């Protein structure tokens, strides 16, 4: 799964790895870590510039999580929401600025333009939701929620669970992939058609890049918001 290039895959312990994905994910993690590390130096009671930025980000993600998850659970999920948001923000935007292809093999791109990555995040969110649901309500009540409002709804509820998983991951993947795909297409047109084409395509590339940044940020926000909603649904007893 790639744009403008094939993948370098290898198998290790019976698992298939994609080198491009691994490098991108690692890079995204490092960028997030470096960013957060840089912003969290000299933490004082009266915040400085960097601390203000970090606190704003923390407040922002806490707001996302807190608006759908009530009470104590939202405090617990604050770190999760913050990390997820920061990672997705960086990962979504990474491919727009940095796209490394080496002899046709993609090594650096947006990790979230790969469905495997986004579906994994989606899976993690829903697993977390199940886990928190069981922890909050106990096995019996948690799984009884699938039978509400009546028993036949089990099919609908299970199906909903599956579609939640699918849409959460595919929405992010689709948005980021389309952004990158168009960027690659524009780049291809620019480099393939001589200097006139190159200059002509530059504003188009700029515009699309700006638009993609916007979409990337929105998608990071949407992903965290929807994840919080799915989790909040699982830790509340459904009213019949």
């Amino acid at each position, binding site marked *: 799964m790639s744009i403008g290039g094939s993948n370098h895959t290898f198998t290790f312990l019976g698992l298939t790895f994609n080198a491009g994905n691994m490098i991108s994910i690692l890079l995204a993690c490092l960028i997030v870590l470096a960013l957060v590390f840089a912003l969290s130096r000299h933490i004082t009671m009266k915040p400085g510039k960097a601390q203000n930025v970090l606190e704003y980000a923390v407040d922002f993600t806490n707001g996302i999580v807190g608006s759908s998850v009530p009470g104590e659970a939202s405090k617990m999920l604050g*770190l999760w929401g913050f990390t997820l948001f920061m990672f997705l923000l960086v990962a979504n935007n990474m491919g727009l600025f940095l796209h490394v292809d080496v002899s046709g093999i993609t090594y650096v791109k947006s990790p979230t333009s790969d469905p*495997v990555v986004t579906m994994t*995040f989606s899976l993690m969110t829903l697993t977390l939701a199940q886990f928190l649901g069981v922890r909050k309500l106990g096995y019996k009540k948690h799984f009884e929620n699938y039978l509400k409002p009546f028993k036949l709804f089990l099919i609908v509820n299970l199906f909903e669970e599956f579609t939640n998983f699918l849409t959460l991951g595919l929405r992010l993947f689709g948005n980021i992939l389309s952004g990158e795909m168009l960027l690659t297409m524009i780049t291809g047109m620019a480099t393939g058609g001589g200097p006139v084409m190159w200059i002509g395509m530059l504003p188009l590339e700029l515009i699309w890049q700006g638009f993609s940044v916007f979409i990337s940020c929105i998608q990071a926000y949407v992903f965290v918001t929807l994840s919080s909603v799915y989790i909040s649904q699982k830790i509340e007893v459904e009213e019949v």
Partner: protein
Amino acid sequence: MFSYSVVGAQLYTGDMVFVMISFLILMYLIKLVAWKPITKMMQNRSDKIANDIDSAKESRDKAAELAQKRQAELAKTREDANSLINTAKQNGQRQREQIVEDARQEASNLKSSAEKDIEQQRQEALANSRKDVASLSIEIASKIISKELNEQDQKGLVDSYIEGLGKQK
């Protein structure tokens, strides 16, 4: 140029594991590096602000209480001063009356004693003059008139004369 594979055609299971593990490690590192200190500081700050608000309210209450107390004390002091002035005024009035009364008393005493003195002196003067006049008139009479008239008759004559004088007066 583009090569897409259908989802599931080649599932990179290793990537899934890699994403999960890297995400968890990232979460842990962020917790260690930034999350804990920043949330602690934010909590501390909100606590401090809450405390400040509380203490501000407390001190405002205290100030209001103090002002009220001072107001009450001021009123009390004014009242005290008023009563003090009133007492002083009354005392003054009484003293004035006393002094006037004493003066009047003394004046009347003086007057009466003076009158008594005058009366006494008058009496004395009268007695003296009576004596003097008697002896003088005797002398005069004895000088002017002859010595036929004795002292007894002369005294009687003078007495009758003086009595007539007193009545005339």
